[in-house]
């Protein structure tokens, strides 16, 4: 028995999050991920952690992600030159999902941007932290100050019970709607709270000072509804929710139009077209793209993993799977991938070439499991 898709052997020294001790105490299985030792699962196992998040609440350590803030009178205007979203028009207390694009319109990273009132706060992918920081430093004027909050941990409390749990500890959190943010005191800790997440469920992402992270996490885990969950469940949850993972579903050669993320381009920005990468993106919007990201449901039970080739009705290769797993909520495999123009409509039959054999599948709408955000 040998793992077919094993994780690359890391020779570098792996970093640990402020919750490393807690993970080990909880019996987590630690794996290398984006330069960190992270819990892939706890004793309960991925299936159970996944199901618990959909039925109650799960706590994830996402401290490996990059937390930045931008300060300066012109921070929003300056950031608009690097993202296609409406930053200048984003009210204090609001958050948006956005993209850093390169000159060719390729995605450098996907990220969350919040207006915290006196600054903009960014949460970026762990694997892209240094690239994003360099990109910002190279493109922002000197009047905009970039700070990395490496001294803060980030926790995600996700699931239908998340609001009740956090509401017991801090009633003000109940007042936040999906994609709203606030700085709130919880257990005497100044928390940067955002009502958002990466599971498709209602929930919060909470930034706390590193030295308070374990006390805060233990208090959440003491709540009867909350179980810890690792990166394994986080991946199957986000895939069921149809959400992209940078490095798999998105990369520097993929445009927002190909990725089905044209909705991140704000109306006003589509009149100005003045963000980095705007010209190629505009050309693709006008003339269409050769390939698009779609959701895929295999007919059988075999999961199609990232890298699996997709064949059309004539047997020719028309695309590739970029994320694929077994969806515990559906009890069936789910995937997403890129297919050639002409094969993107829902219900289009495809063949997934798994271990040399064609496995029938269909293009399917995403999310595979409906989002349950607190609108």
């Amino acid at each position: 028995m040998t793992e077919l898709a094993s994780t690359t052997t890391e020779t570098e020294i792996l970093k640990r999050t402020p919750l490393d001790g807690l993970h080990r105490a909880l019996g987590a299985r630690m794996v290398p991920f984006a330069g960190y030792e992270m819990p892939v699962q706890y004793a309960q196992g991925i299936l159970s952690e996944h199901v618990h998040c959909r039925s109650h609440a799960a706590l994830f350590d996402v401290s490996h992600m990059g937390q930045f803030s931008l300060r300066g009178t012109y921070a929003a205007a300056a950031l608009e030159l690097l993202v296609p979203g409406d930053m200048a028009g984003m009210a204090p207390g609001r958050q948006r999902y956005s993209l850093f694009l390169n000159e060719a319109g390729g995605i450098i990273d996907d990220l969350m941007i919040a207006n915290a009132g006196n600054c903009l706060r960014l949460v970026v992918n762990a694997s892209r932290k240094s690239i994003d920081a360099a990109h910002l430093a190279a493109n922002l004027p000197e009047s905009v100050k970039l700070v990395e909050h490496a001294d803060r941990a980030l926790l995600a409390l996700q699931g239908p019970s998340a609001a009740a749990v956090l509401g017991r500890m801090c009633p003000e959190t109940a007042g936040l709607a999906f994609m709203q943010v606030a700085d709130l005191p919880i257990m005497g800790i100044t928390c940067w709270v955002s009502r958002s997440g990466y599971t498709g469920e209602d929930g919060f992402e909470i930034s706390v000072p590193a030295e308070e992270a374990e006390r805060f996490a233990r208090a959440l885990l003491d709540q009867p509804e909350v179980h810890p969950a690792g990166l394994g469940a986080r991946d199957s949850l986000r895939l069921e929710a149809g959400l992209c993972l940078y490095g798999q579903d998105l990369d520097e050669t993929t445009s927002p139009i190909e990725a089905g993320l044209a909705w991140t381009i704000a109306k006003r920005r589509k009149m100005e077209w003045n963000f980095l990468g705007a010209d190629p993106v505009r050309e693709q919007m006008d003339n269409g793209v050769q390939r698009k990201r779609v959701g895929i449901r295999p007919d059988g039970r075999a999961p199609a993993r990232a890298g699996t080739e997709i064949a059309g009705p004539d047997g020719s290769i028309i695309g590739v799977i970029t994320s694929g797993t077994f969806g515990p909520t559906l009890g069936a495999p789910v995937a997403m991938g890129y297919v050639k123009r002409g094969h993107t409509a829902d219900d289009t039959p495809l063949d997934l070439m798994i271990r040399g054999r064609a496995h029938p599948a269909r293009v399917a709408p995403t999310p595979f499991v409906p989002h349950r955000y607190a609108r």
Partner: protein
Amino acid sequence: MSERRYTAEHEWISLDGDIATVGITNHAQEALGDLVFVELPDTEREVSAGEACAVVESVKAASDVYAPLTGKITEVNGIVAEEPALVNREPEGEAWFFRIKIADRVAFDTLMDADQYKAFLETAA
């Protein structure tokens, strides 16, 4: 009375006459985590020792299961394909994968016995 042997790839083999029954060890199922898919070989297939002939998948990853001995697949356990979780519950019992009719008993004798496999797990840990 059947004899049981083990491979370094964490398969167990139980020999009854010239029929070897093959499954994955408890250590293997623990390392894999919750199994969600099992693909079994076709019966009548001729396999060589060390040849990948079944696949087990957890939520996270797919892994090969190898034929520990050369021979012909005579039977597969369809129950594990129907219910992969059985492999987590009964790895060295009900959840066998396939049976091979072997030609060479000597190859079986060279595999690890229970004590050797236990020692192997300890050195590998």
